[in-house]
């Protein structure tokens, strides 16, 4: 059961003559499976997100199309396809057309290195994590292409915000995953997952259950939310300030592609968080290993997406200066301290003492940093000079 998809693929590949042809077919099957699965997951997530946000705001959410509104994505897709595709006359036609494609292609590429089950990574690079971050950085290009080519001040403002945000948060994102790479001693996603297999008693060897891993996981999730422009870091598309940011001149299916790209980017980031910190496709308890590995991976993925939706329903959007302060004054120092803690963890002998030392090493600076940041803030009741 665990290897059903792997065996299916092997059987399909074996139908073709050996050599280059088999390699090609194998790659094509992986790509098709990847795109199919994640496009389906995207459709599911949009409707679940809208329903979840609705419930958070004490509403029903979409409930008209199909039972409990579950067919809503189909209606959305049809609407996106039938809408007129407007391109501004003064827009740079080629770049305007290419921007959504440049967003969607790299995020799917990034998914290729994430292992989704035992033997279920589309490709197993030796430098998989490096590849992930390299193609992940290409989304910035597409965002700026979209913002620049639209020839609209709001879209350019949105694109500039996006660039500032994405570059700032790329640093803590990579630094927080560096701790895992240091401990695992490998850049391959598959090896990192294998390092987290095994249990001591009931407790799995996941990196999130170590002090540096926990801090790294939180930092990674915050940075991933910022990287994929999720609320509370959705400044580049802040509806109330710059209408829709860099999407403003996109309509119809190009907009849907942007939407898709953004969600696939979120899935890729969540997938990497699972790979790095949450033990990949490993079961949380030794007695649950009979459940197929891909079920665990997608279960964890849905759980992380639920957390992102929950955060989106809770937090208001940050201001630009708050965003930058948070990235450079809090996230970056914490990520560096976390890196140091991982080093300390590696060189101290295992035991309770190591655990306590590392926990203090992470928690102490967190409290200190939080306190100093708050003290310099001079929080007080706001007074208005003119309005009432």
């Amino acid at each position, binding site marked *: 059961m665990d290897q059903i998809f792997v065996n299916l693929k092997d059987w399909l590949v074996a139908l073709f003559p050996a050599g280059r042809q088999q390699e090609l077919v194998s790659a094509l099957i992986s790509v098709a499976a990847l795109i199919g699965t994640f496009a389906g997951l995207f459709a599911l997530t949009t409707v679940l997100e809208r329903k*979840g946000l609705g419930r*958070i705001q*004490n509403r029903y959410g979409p409930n008209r199309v199909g039972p409990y509104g579950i067919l809503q994505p189909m209606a959305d897709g049809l609407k996106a396809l039938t809408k007129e595709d407007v391109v501004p006359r003064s827009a740079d036609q080629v770049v305007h057309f290419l921007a959504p494609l440049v967003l969607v292609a790299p995020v799917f590429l990034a998914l290729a290195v994430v292992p989704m089950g035992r033997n279920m990574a589309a490709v197993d690079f030796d430098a998989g994590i490096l590849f992930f971050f390299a193609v992940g950085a290409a989304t910035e290009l597409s965002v700026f292409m979209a913002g620049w080519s639209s020839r609209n001040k709001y879209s350019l403002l949105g694109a500039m915000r996006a660039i500032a945000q994405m570059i700032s948060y790329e640093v803590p994102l990579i630094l927080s995953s560096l701790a895992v790479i240091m401990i695992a001693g490998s850049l391959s996603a598959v090896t990192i997952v294998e390092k987290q297999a095994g249990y001591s008693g009931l407790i799995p060897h996941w990196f999130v259950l170590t002090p540096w891993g926990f801090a790294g996981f939180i930092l990674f999730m915050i940075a991933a939310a910022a990287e994929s422009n999720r609320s509370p870091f959705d400044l580049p598309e802040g509806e109330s300030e710059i209408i829709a940011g860099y999407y403003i001149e996109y309509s119809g299916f190009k907009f849907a592609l942007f939407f898709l790209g953004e969600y696939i980017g979120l899935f890729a980031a969540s997938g990497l968080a699972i790979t790095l910190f949450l033990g990949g496709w490993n079961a949380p308890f030794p007695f649950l290993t009979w459940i197929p590995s891909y079920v665990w991976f997608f279960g964890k993925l849905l759980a992380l997406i639920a957390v992102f939706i*929950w955060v989106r*329903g809770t*937090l208001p959007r940050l201001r630009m200066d708050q965003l930058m302060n948070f990235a450079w004054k809090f996230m970056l120092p914490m990520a560096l301290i976390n890196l140091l803690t991982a080093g300390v963890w590696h060189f101290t002998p295992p035991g309770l003492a190591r655990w306590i030392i590392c926990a203090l090493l992470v928690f102490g600076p*967190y409290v200190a940093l939080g306190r100093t940041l708050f003290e310099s803030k001079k929080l007080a009741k706001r007074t208005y000079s003119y309005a009432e």
Partner: protein
Amino acid sequence: MLGEGIIKGMGETARNFFGSYVKEDRLTTVQYPEERLPQKEAARNFPFLVYDGKDWDKGLRCVACQICEKECPPQCIYIVKDATKKPDHIGKMQFQAKVFDIDISVCMSCQICVEVCPFEAIKMDVEYELSTGDRFGQLLLHKDQLAKSNDYYRKIHPTEAAEVDARMGAEKAKAEAKAKPAAATSATPSKP
């Protein structure tokens, strides 16, 4: 400590999320086509013509004085006078409208037509499901579409309608009281 507020907020939203499944009264939205909120008495959107009695064409209060047509700021009312006359509620012979059209795609719901009408003939409606497939023909309402009974008016705006009814009743009583001696005086000379 940093992040405390976030945890608190997340708790609050989680409580909302699960609470909305447990307690129905948390859900404040109305599922529109099936459920509707009761109409507010002060609600208004587009004007309609009031008629008394059963037959809308005979009972229409409008006397085609065209005040509303002249006062209408966006000029959405179009009236053509008829040559024949008919009695109004106090028995006086009055003109009537041959054509009375309101283009509700132009109307701005200002209620000025209602305020200037000396005959209580035009009032504001509360009907809001007016979408049609044809934005020119279907949104130009004719006399037969505009005519609505006084009972309907009483139902949608009870307080206002009661005032109007009282005023019109008083006018009618006054006219009858005036008509009686007049009838008596006009009757006496004809007797001999």
